[in-house]
């Protein structure tokens, strides 16, 4: 479960996020869409603990991300929008490193590493340095690293960046599967059709505030679907 309780964040007197309150239930996939610079990434960064809210509270699972950050982070998986990784490690070494800092016991870490490498289709390049990976391969590795410790909450910023159609299909399956197993997923995206297809609810953010939240069913019943709604909201 994720709870955002009246959170705000400013940078040099500019409001990036204003008084957002939101609850995402266990197993729910919540999507957030909005124009560039609307506050999506800032919201996610606050949820990961990278930024501290000026005001309000963020609860991940049952932990406050500011006051109980280590506990909150150990049940959190995060996939950022840009895939900066340790370029001089191999994919396998990177996953082992992530397992270590999440305190996964050795035998489990090794089997999870193999499992993730297989699942995301990077087993055959597991011993290559990350610096030689394409954008799509990096994105797959990011997902593998975000899931290796079996997080209860998954935060994703632009999930399908650089992925080929096979990758997109595979990843959609993974996200749905995680949700069915009770993982709470919060994703920010510009791909409206994917948000429409995957998310149980979609929030529209503009100028730092969530201006509307619609359920899958509500979106389906609307003329022009999510795209029509987005264009209408974005121009307001």
């Amino acid at each position, binding site marked *: 479960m994720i709870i955002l309780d009246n959170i705000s964040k400013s940078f040099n007197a500019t409001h990036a996020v204003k008084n957002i309150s939101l609850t995402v239930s266990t197993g729910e996939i919540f999507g957030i869409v909005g124009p560039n610079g609307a506050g999506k990434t800032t919201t996610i960064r606050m949820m990961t*603990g*990278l930024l501290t809210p000026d005001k309000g509270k963020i609860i991940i699972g049952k932990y406050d991300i500011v006051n109980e950050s*280590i506990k909150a982070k150990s049940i959190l998986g995060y996939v950022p929008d840009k895939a900066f990784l340790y370029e001089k490690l191999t994919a396998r070494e990177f996953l082992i490193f992530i397992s270590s800092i999440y305190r996964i016991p050795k035998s489990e*870490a090794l089997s999870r590493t193999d499992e993730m490498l297989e699942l995301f289709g990077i087993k055959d390049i597991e*011993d290559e340095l990350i610096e030689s990976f394409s954008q799509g391969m990096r994105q797959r590795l990011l997902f593998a690293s975000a899931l290796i410790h079996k997080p209860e909450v998954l935060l994703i910023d632009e999930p399908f960046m650089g992925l080929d159609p096979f990758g997109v299909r595979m990843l959609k399956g993974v996200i749905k599967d995680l949700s069915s197993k009770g993982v709470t997923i919060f994703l920010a995206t510009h791909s409206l059709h994917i948000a429409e297809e995957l998310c149980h609810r979609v929030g529209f953010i503009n100028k730092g505030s969530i201006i509307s939240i619609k359920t899958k069913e509500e979106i389906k019943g609307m003329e022009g679907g999510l795209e029509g709604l987005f264009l209408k909201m974005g121009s307001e």
Partner: protein
Amino acid sequence: MKMGQEDKAFFLLIRPKLLSLKNSIGTKVVLRRLPFIAIGVGFWFLFYIGTYKVLSYVRGIEFFGEILSRKLFSMTFFSLLGFLIISSIITSISSFYLSKDIPLLLSKPVEIRDILRLKTFEAFMNSSWMVLSFMPPVFIAYGISYGAPAGYYFLILGCFLLFSLITAGIGITIAHILTRLFPAKRTRNVLFGIGVFLFLSLYFLIKGLIPQDMSTPEGFISSIMSFKTESPMLPSYWITEAVFPILKKSGFSIFYPIILLSNALFFLLLSEIAGLRFYRVNMERVQPSGERIKRWILGGYYPEINTAMFYKDIKTFFRDTGQWSQVFIIGALIMIYVYNFKSIPINALSGFPFIKEIMVLVNLVLSGLVLSAVSARFIYASVSLEGQAFWIIRTSPVGMNRFIRSKFFYGFIPVTLLMLVLVFLTNLAMNAGGILMYLSLGTVLILCISVSGLGTGFGAIYPKFKYENIASVSMSLGGMAFMLIAFSVVIATLSLEAWIFYVYSLEDAMDLSAKIQIALGVIMIILINAIAFYLPMRIGKKKLQEQTGII
């Protein structure tokens, strides 16, 4: 492209660098960095005083004073020649082949010649700016000591610039050729080759240049005099010949400045020809190519959380050419350092009181300088090494305490081992055993702890997660400030130790005042080193908690 257009293209390419520099220097930034600038100026002043004193002493030596002074001048440039060439080779490889802006530049409609010129400028600045900024106190000390006219200062600055351009031209040419010659699928092979080549050259050069008999005062002076830096084929000889006549007010000849100028142009042109010939092919060879890494002997090792970051950093170090290639520069300097101590004629100087103690102290001061420089390169830069992947640490359940601790040990262990071996060997070379050996090793251990803490802390306070190459991190203003503060800690500690030793050896029977002075000295040493170790790491930890990393 016509000449005018070429010049325009160069300035166009360099514009983003200059604009970035301009945008990063705001009033706020300058004010924040003011204390560091003040430290730099203070250090400059101390360096000037030190050089002036040494020069006055040398010039006062009967018969040989003036010749020795000139010899010291040419020896300084002779050492700089080697250092700058090595530094230029290493930075050229980073600037020409490993910089992050290369793919962008190569994809644009820009002539290779213009990219080469841009990178030549970058390599020149990166390899020589530190030396260029530290040499003026030496030039001024010589000028004041000889009462030189104003023209001397202009001449030496101009000649030194040309001297540095010659070394840059040579370094860049060698870098292009070596990258072409070695199987460059792994860039580290290239640098390994350069390293072996340089070590062997330096070893035989020094071995051949210094005569072995230095056991008597006469032998010592004649050895210094016959140190063969005076070959008319060397730029260090040209700069000495260009500057010394005006320094001694005995006239001015344009001959040697012209030689310097023509050689600077020649070597820059040579580097451009080498670049035009090899750069394209070399670039294709150094691209990451899906190279498979063999699993280590320790492949089955699974680190727990406390050692995971350390293990990751060690692996990354040996795979990152930008990092470990710097070991060569330091290795070469240390080799020269140890060799110099081996050559000191302790027996010939045995008539002076406390000569062994003084030499051990001088050794510790110089080791402190090496410690500060090595720490700037490796410890200060260790936090920034996380680069743009720092978000991984910030979003994982790793506390900043644990992170900083890991970075501390990553730097502390190798640097301490290096320094202990260095001081042990140099003391052995001077036959300084017993209590002097124990005291020096103990002092070095304390200094390694405090300077490593200081470096880790400073690196965390001023992290630079977005860098072109890792060498630029230690050469930033924060890196320089760290180096100066680290060296100040070394000097303060050693001064207090010297004071304790002085009080101890003066008093036949220790009275209360002497005991109090010694106790105060010890407390001060502990306090200074404890603060240097603890405070920056504490502030650094807080600063890192506010950092998002660049994502």
